[in-house]
């Protein structure tokens, strides 16, 4: 496994939609390098023939009847919207 460099931190932060400064990237790189180094411990184990566990209980897909039900009233849904106009969510101008 590779160590986490400052450049990788910047790349990962971008993928995760986090803005970070150069200084922060350096700090996070140090910490994440220590953390990913500790994770290397797992390489001691031979897991070639081990099935991965995604869920601890034996459970199949849970399906419900495909039946339309009324949604929440609009005013309730809009309750936590910061800016709105005519019952719509308003967002800042994002096109240059």
């Amino acid at each position: 496994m590779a160590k986490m460099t400052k450049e990788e931190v910047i790349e990962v932060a971008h993928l995760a939609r986090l803005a970070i400064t150069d200084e922060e990237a350096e700090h996070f790189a140090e910490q994440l390098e220590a953390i990913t180094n500790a994770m290397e411990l797992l390489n001691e184990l031979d897991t070639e023939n081990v099935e991965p566990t995604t869920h601890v209980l034996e459970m199949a897909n849970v399906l419900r009847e495909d039946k339309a039900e009324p949604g929440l009233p609009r005013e309730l849904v809009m309750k936590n919207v910061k800016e709105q106009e005519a019952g719509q969510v308003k967002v800042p101008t994002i096109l240059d």
Partner: protein
Amino acid sequence: MKLADKTAAELQELIHTKELTIADLTEKTFKRIEELDSDVDAFLALNQEQASSQAAEMDQVPFEERGPLFGLPVGVKDNIVTEGIETTASSRILEGFNPIYNATVVEKLRAAGMVIVGKLNMDEFAMGSSNENSYYKNTKNPWNLETVPGGSSGGSAAAVAAGEVPFTLGSDTGGSIRQPASFCGVVGMKPTYGRVSRFGLIAYASSLDQIGPVTRTVKDNALLLNVIAGHDEKDSTSANVDVPDFAAALTGDITGLRIGVPKEYFAQGVGESSVKAVKDALKVLEEKGAICEEISLPHSKYALSTYYLIASSEASSNLSRFDGIRYGYRTEKAGNLLDFYMNTRSEGFGDEVKRRIMLGTYALSSGYYDAYYKKAQKVRTLIKNDFDKAFEKYDVIIGPTTPTPSFKIGEIIDDPLTMYANDILTIPINLAGVPAISIPCGFDNGLPLGLQIIGKYFDEETVYRVADVFEQATDFHKKTPHIWEGAAQ
């Protein structure tokens, strides 16, 4: 009359003999919070107005229609959504968020007639072991206000230890109920994964998260689990299994019970005081007829790395929903769409949350997925197999909850790996999905120590029975912090 040390049964006795009304109890609860919480800082939002009017109405309900927790106050961790009460998960990104529905557990509390007094501080999005990752405040440990209450359900444990409220709900992803329960000298149960609905729990790591009760006694804990347990069609991972009466499991009899004691839980890094307290506790259980044998859970040392890969990966996915559009914090620095998202999230999330999002994004990214995420899922299987094998022969597994007692605020916050090591003894349990409780079992320099009792899948009953036998044979749960002495309520 002081009420802080009363159990549910004692409070109901006072109410039934008309020495106390639900309205009085509610008022006294808020007074005690007002007295002590300026020091403890366990609560974020209080629900005083609604609680008071609810309490007055509830006094009119005939006694025969009331259950064992009817009219009793309860606090709720701030990552559990409560309609009409601000819910932030202690994050800036949810500042002012006012949920439009209740979590299933909250509906269940209300159906049982419990009075919700407020929301409890936590590490942001349940990521942390000290409550220092809250955007809003540092909760203090009632036993020593210079030390941390543990985390992430630090507010839930501290509020109970301070006697501010007899019941709280927490959530536990890698130890977040048990570690603070241990640090604060209270009883904290992480039920089997799937036992309690996660609907309305703000997701951190969905394959590990579980809601559970925090209380001062084992019996009260079992009563609160009775209220919140059960299948929920709104949570597709909730288990469709029968819910027993957990309180009825406290028979006081553990004759012939087989206890496995994993040698890895007493290894390097686990402090002397924790080791000694647990060994003494095992002697108590042996005197009560249990049989203790040393066992091995050989993959224990891999649990921490496995957990941080899986939990961070799930977190990076779960927390991608916070984008500043429909609810929550929104940046002033919009620029283009990408800047809008990136600034909103950077300003809204704290450092530990960012670290885990980045670690998870990295572990899931192309080229690393097999080496990190899939590898961790495979090791998770090995850890789960350790427990399955041990439980073929033993009824419960017992060890310390944490390697050490609580530590000073600020002491290790800048050292993530040392902070993570707090959870080495609780994390394997979440990876396996089995239930486990922490109960008080001793003190080190005035700070509480916890005994961890781990059970088979859906066998919370045996866990409670063992915990109750220990509690009845000892008086650790009767000790209270010094801050109780000056309180008028």
